[in-house]
């Protein structure tokens, strides 16, 4: 299920943006996650170490992002762009340092698909939803969990208040910047895992163009999903559906006559159309605004 990384990435964004932090480095975090998953698995031939490394790399990028945007209070969009370039450079460069120029593409085994007993036997739905790899199941668990944490716990209230009214949170004796920084770290870990889906979970190899803008789509889904885990589900399914249509049209008509570039552009067009048409956005009030304590 190709929607898994989008689910995870958008969810990470929801957490972070609820506290007022846009993680504009998400494209780069996806990439280092994909790369971390790949080299971890390739070197140790253990998929678990691969996934762990993906999380660590994702958190490392998020940590740089957090330090610069939360503590140094610099522009989030700009910092994100810098980190995206940096991520591309790091992955391409160290891939070369580690492996030179291989004559055949390096391959790793991908995560096995685990069929859940009973559930996977349901006709139609079973094989689609319950015969997936572990990352997809993780997404199933994390999405309702996010809904619960954000809206039913005091931690969630703190997180949301940090994005809406940081002064109030500060007055309540909670360190705003620390909350934001750690949320970004968590978002980095989740996004790193999301990125690793492309290498460890799906392709079994790494190229520098492997993410190709999908981090941005996850970013967009968070917006379209109205900063809500439920919205993320609908948003991701809409994108997954568009993708499926694209693949279907391509397979039916062949690529010669029908402009399959239109199909490639469809998710991006969809994003713009939805961004324009949605009216009742519930933007966290302090999204993208650094918090400075009055002294």
């Amino acid at each position, binding site marked *: 299920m190709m929607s898994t990384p989008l689910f995870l990435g958008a969810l990470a964004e929801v957490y972070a943006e609820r506290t007022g932090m846009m993680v504009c480095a998400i494209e780069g975090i996806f990439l280092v996650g994909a790369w971390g998953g790949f080299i971890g698995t390739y070197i140790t031939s253990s998929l678990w170490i691969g996934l762990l490394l993906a999380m660590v790399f994702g958190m490392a990028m998020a940590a740089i992002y957090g330090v610069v945007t939360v503590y140094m209070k*610099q522009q989030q969009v700009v910092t994100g762009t810098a980190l995206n370039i940096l991520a591309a450079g790091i992955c391409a460069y160290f891939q070369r340092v580690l492996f030179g120029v291989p004559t055949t593409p390096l391959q790793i085994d991908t995560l096995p698909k685990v069929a859940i007993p009973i559930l996977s036997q349901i006709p139609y739905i079973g094989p689609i939803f319950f015969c997936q790899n572990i990352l997809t199941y993780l997404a199933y668990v994390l999405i309702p969990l996010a809904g619960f944490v954000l809206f039913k716990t005091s931690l969630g209230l703190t997180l949301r208040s940090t994005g809406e009214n940081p002064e109030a949170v500060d007055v309540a004796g909670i360190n705003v910047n620390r909350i934001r920084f750690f949320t970004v770290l968590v978002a980095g870990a989740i996004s790193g895992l999301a990125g690793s889906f492309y290498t460890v979970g799906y392709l079994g190899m790494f190229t*520098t163009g492997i993410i190709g803008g999908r981090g941005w789509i996850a970013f967009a889904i968070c917006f379209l999903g109205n900063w809500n885990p439920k919205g993320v589900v609908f948003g991701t399914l809409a994108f997954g559906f568009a993708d499926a249509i694209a693949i279907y049209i391509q397979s039916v008509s062949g690529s010669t006559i029908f402009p399959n570039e239109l199909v490639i552009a469809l998710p*991006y067009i969809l994003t713009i159309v939805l961004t324009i048409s949605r009216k009742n956005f519930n933007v966290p009030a302090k999204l993208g605004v650094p918090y400075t304590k009055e002294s």
Partner: protein
Amino acid sequence: MKGKFNVLFYNVGAVAVGLIISASMLLFMRINPLTVGGEAIRKIFMDHYTTGEILVKATPLIFTSLAFAFTYKANLFNIGAQGQFYAGSIAAVSLSLLLGESLPTALVILIVLIGSFAAGAAVGGLIGLAKAKFHANEFLVSMMSTYIVKALMDYLLRTGLQETKAEYLQTNAISINAYLPNIVPGTRIHLGFALAIVTAILVWVLLYKTPLGFRIRAVGYNRNASELGGIRSGKIYVISFFIAGGLAGMAGLTEVNGVQHMLLQDFNSSIGSFGIGIAILANGNPIGCIFASILFGFLNVMGTTMGRLPGLSIPASIIDLIEGIVMICVIASYFVRRAVQNNIEKKHVKKAGV
């Protein structure tokens, strides 16, 4: 004036720190960065052609960085310069192929200039419109527009614009008549570089010496206050995105008519994001964009030259690494500068208190 000098000082320091960090990355390949760097610099300046490449590479970067800097002054983020550049390139190559043979060079260049500006500006203007009319997030829309324009370009390269041999995804070469004339013999430096400098100066004049520029900056500083002052911010959004898009589109002219003489797939695929870095390095100042672009042009040539040094196989991707690190250092330096200034001010306040 002192403030400007201060920024420059911190920026130069940040770039130096960034370069030192990136140079130490070479140690991972068991290469001595000093000897390799020295060798590369010697190679670049020994050879006029390669020295000229710095300015050739800097030319489109000046335009894309201006495209970001311009909207940045209105506190908008135009991160779609890449797409606007592609739109400009499509216009430039179509017009050059169509008119290149029949009209005199000066006229062709003028038409292509207007065409590429208009194409980029159309893309930019639509983003501005989405922001002004529908309160869409301009950051997201401009990001997405890049992918859409790129898909459009791929489509055209596969169909209407593809070369007559139909072998590669590229157009026919444009007629020599439509080339931007070379201005320094022995190099590839073309008229586009001069155009870029003139444009940057014009943008500076527009931003700082005209009523429109004042309005744009006013909206950037405080949108609500300028609304109260009678400035319609929606209109300013559209105008500034329109102009920014046009500026990025002009890079299409300089690259198609000045360097490649055709349009290829994935053409100059990172000038958009580098433009953002350059604009930040220049603190959004159009004149600063010229110098920062030349610096990035130099880094670019440095990267490829190091890659070509025999027996070392340094990957060309080191350019991304260097530029990413330099950008982070520059961003961090803004924080350091602020902190240092605050400290100095605090000391003054304390002294005054005693």
